[in-house]
């Protein structure tokens, strides 16, 4: 029998795309990102596609939105029992989908808007940070409840993913029904057939979502490091470990995205030696301290977060990635065509250098 994601490490090539409106207005319809990623059809092989949308749930903006895959009713009941204990479930429903003949074997897909019940949590767990509790919940359900998998756990954002070409997955989830200030998308080309929806991308934890193209050669060094800090890399995918690294550096260590980029795609020592003294000192300290979080091997990633995104290439730029901007909207994709398809008259598309992050913040005013 073929092993499922998490039981075996499966390398894959991919296509990625991202769009963000700097004004923070929910100006980008789901259709747009689907059109963009669809152009890069040949970079996927029908074994995985997915999207992350930010700002899509204005009515429940302050609740955590859990998107969950269930294999069966039993998994759902067990999960809901757990959620009921610790959360006020404001709204729950199946995520609306439309049949698509290229999308088969879909699991049960549910969505919950939840608010943590602090007195209950404290009774059981003592003082605990809210975000940590959410993370613990995700790890608990995904590790211990057989057949349940929370694949989206942020606020006012959501992941939509599955086995199929990204354009079919977008159609399946009716993404035209969602408007966002930021979208990212992923088309997957795994070298194996896991056929498991949970293994598709984006991968997300809280507000962080990551789409990634590449195969990182530092994987096990990164994994064994990050697992010291309470993360469990269950899926054995690059995207998972990258997400945890970003979550760790941001949420637990308080770094900004510029510094995070400098840690995971650190400049070479010879470049550091050429830097002005102050900068060199800081860089040396960062690289030295977090040496095990350096990511090597080819990657291009787009990491979405609350009101922003970061796009980053490995420091040798071993994967293609281009970017462009028009009318306050920034576009990033594996190929230029994916940008031109949705913004034909864009000027000045450029290829960011390896290790040089593009960090875009969206205004919070518009919300």
């Amino acid at each position: 029998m073929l092993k499922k994601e998490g039981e075996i490490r499966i390398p894959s090539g991919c296509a990625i795309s991202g769009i963000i409106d700097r004004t923070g207005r929910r100006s980008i319809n789901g259709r747009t990102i689907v059109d963009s990623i669809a152009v890069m059809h040949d970079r996927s092989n029908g074994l995985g596609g997915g999207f992350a949308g930010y700002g899509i749930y204005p009515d429940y903006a302050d609740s955590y939105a859990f998107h969950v895959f269930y294999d069966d009713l039993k998994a759902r009941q067990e999960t809901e029992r757990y959620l009921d204990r610790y959360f006020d479930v404001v709204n729950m429903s199946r995520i609306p989908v439309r049949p698509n003949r290229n999308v088969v074997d879909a699991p049960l897909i549910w969505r919950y808007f939840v608010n943590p019940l602090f007195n209950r949590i404290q009774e059981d767990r003592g003082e605990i940070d809210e975000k940590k509790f959410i993370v613990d919940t995700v790890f608990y359900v995904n590790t211990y409840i057989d057949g349940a998998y929370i694949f989206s756990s942020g606020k006012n954002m959501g992941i939509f993913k599955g086995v199929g070409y990204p354009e079919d997955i977008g159609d399946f989830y009716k993404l035209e029904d969602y408007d966002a200030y930021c979208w990212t998308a992923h088309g997957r080309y795994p070298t194996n057939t896991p056929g498991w929806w949970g293994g598709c991308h984006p991968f997300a934890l809280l507000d962080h979502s990551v789409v990634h193209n590449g195969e990182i050669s530092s994987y096990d060094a990164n994994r064994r490091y990050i697992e010291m800090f309470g993360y469990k890399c269950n899926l054995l995918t690059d995207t998972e470990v990258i997400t945890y690294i970003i979550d760790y550096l941001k949420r637990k260590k308080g770094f900004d995205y510029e510094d995070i980029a400098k840690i995971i795609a650190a400049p070479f020592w010879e470049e550091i030696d050429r830097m002005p003294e102050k900068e060199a000192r800081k860089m040396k300290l960062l690289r030295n301290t977090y040496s095990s979080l350096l990511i090597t091997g080819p990657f291009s990633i787009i990491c979405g977060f609350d009101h922003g995104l970061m796009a980053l290439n490995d420091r040798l730029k071993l994967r293609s990635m281009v970017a462009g901007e028009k009318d306050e909207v920034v576009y990033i994709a594996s190929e230029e065509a994916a940008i031109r398809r949705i913004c034909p008259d864009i000027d000045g598309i450029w290829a960011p250098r390896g290790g040089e992050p593009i960090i875009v913040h969206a205004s919070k005013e518009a919300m």
Partner: protein
Amino acid sequence: MGIEYLYPEFEVHRNFDRCIKCRVCERQCSEGVHFYDAEDDIMRADESKCVDCQRCVTMCPTRALKIVKTENTFRPNHNWHQDTIEEIYRQATSGGALLSSMGNPKDYPSYWDRILLNASQVTNPSIDPLREPMETKVFLGKKPHDLEFDSHGEVISKLPPQIELELPVMFSAMSFGALSENAHKSLARAATACGTCYNTGEGGLNKSLYPYGPNTIVQVASGRFGVHEDYLKAGCAIEIKMGQGAKPGIGGHLPGRKIGPKVAETRMIPEGSDAISPAPHHDIYSIEDLRQLVYSLKEATNYEKPVIVKIAAVHNVAAIASGIARSGADIIAIDGFRGGTGAAPTRIRDNVGIPIELALAAVDQRLRDEKIRNDISIVVGGSIRSSADVVKAIALGADACYIGTAALIALGCHLCRQCQRGLCNWGIATQREDLCRRLNPDIGTEHLINLLTAWNNEIKEMMGGMGINSIEALRGNRLMLRGVGMTEKELEILGIKHAGE
């Protein structure tokens, strides 16, 4: 003759058609094997003295010599090997414990040789070290837990004391006394030229080598020879030697005949007196005592030098390492059971300790499980024989490797394993003036630099093949390793998969 007569292990084969009776072999052999028989005008050999150091073979101008293992044999027996029987004869006639040197030569499994490396194919590109930067710089020492920044985002945190190495290979502890001055000089100079470190061993540091201090690790062993304030401050790090792979649980003994004026001065002991290192440090009978020594050394050096604690790989090495990581030490050096020595009781050398590969894997995993891996760096030694062993060690979780025997081989050592006799024909493990002169420190330095340069290039090549361009991304990256011909248990301890998985 009785049972004490043992047929010589090696035979000197001299091709008399080639021999020109130049008597070079005679002058070169410190063991007195070769001699000229004037009566018959012929070169002869007393093979009973031959240790197969290959010096005469190398120096003979006409290639007239070869040393061959004798075919004389006891009746073959798989249980009672010839050397086992001979050792009994020796002990039956002498009543002594057997002594030997260099590393354990027995046929135990080498795990390095059963581990294979990965390379990129199709799904990610390999990286060509000739075209792209390939980084092998490492820092040894603690990592800060949290970095602090002021309100302008300027870092205020400082790095704890660390050792910066241009490549993950250092020369391991070998004392002046066990080694000749020229050997030490070569190690010091090569370490400096290559941006790595050598280690004084327990013999102190001769004043003439103080200029190489930034690339010197000064050792504090149970005998405390040559330890004083300037010595502690002279190096870039201090190593507390708790044990050694070749003789775990055993102290050291440098016989008085090796203690000439310079060695005596360096060790701060009288000339000609035996230098005996006790088996334990008599102020360390427990882990909390170790902590005190770590902190006294730090105190003595203003907390400017990282402290290394070196132990032999023994059965519960992981638990010991965890204790050391909590003792305030910055680096732990683990020496495997194959590690070399200038002299050790044979039974100890051949039967005590465990393979470094297993010890390393267990320690690295244990420190990670306890979430203290960042508090300490791991250096491993005890038969690192090639750059491939280095790469495998780093992928298993080491920060850097120590090489001892390999460095001596680069200086000319032919592994005759007779260092304890002090008659090293290669000028390495000896204090005899005429023999010491055979090792030219300029050439020795050059050979060591060549060796490290070659290994570093090979390391880069292997890393590039794996698509890794920085050594940090290799450290602990066990997915890059596969085992061949191992049991489930061995794979489990090493934390790697079997080839084909």
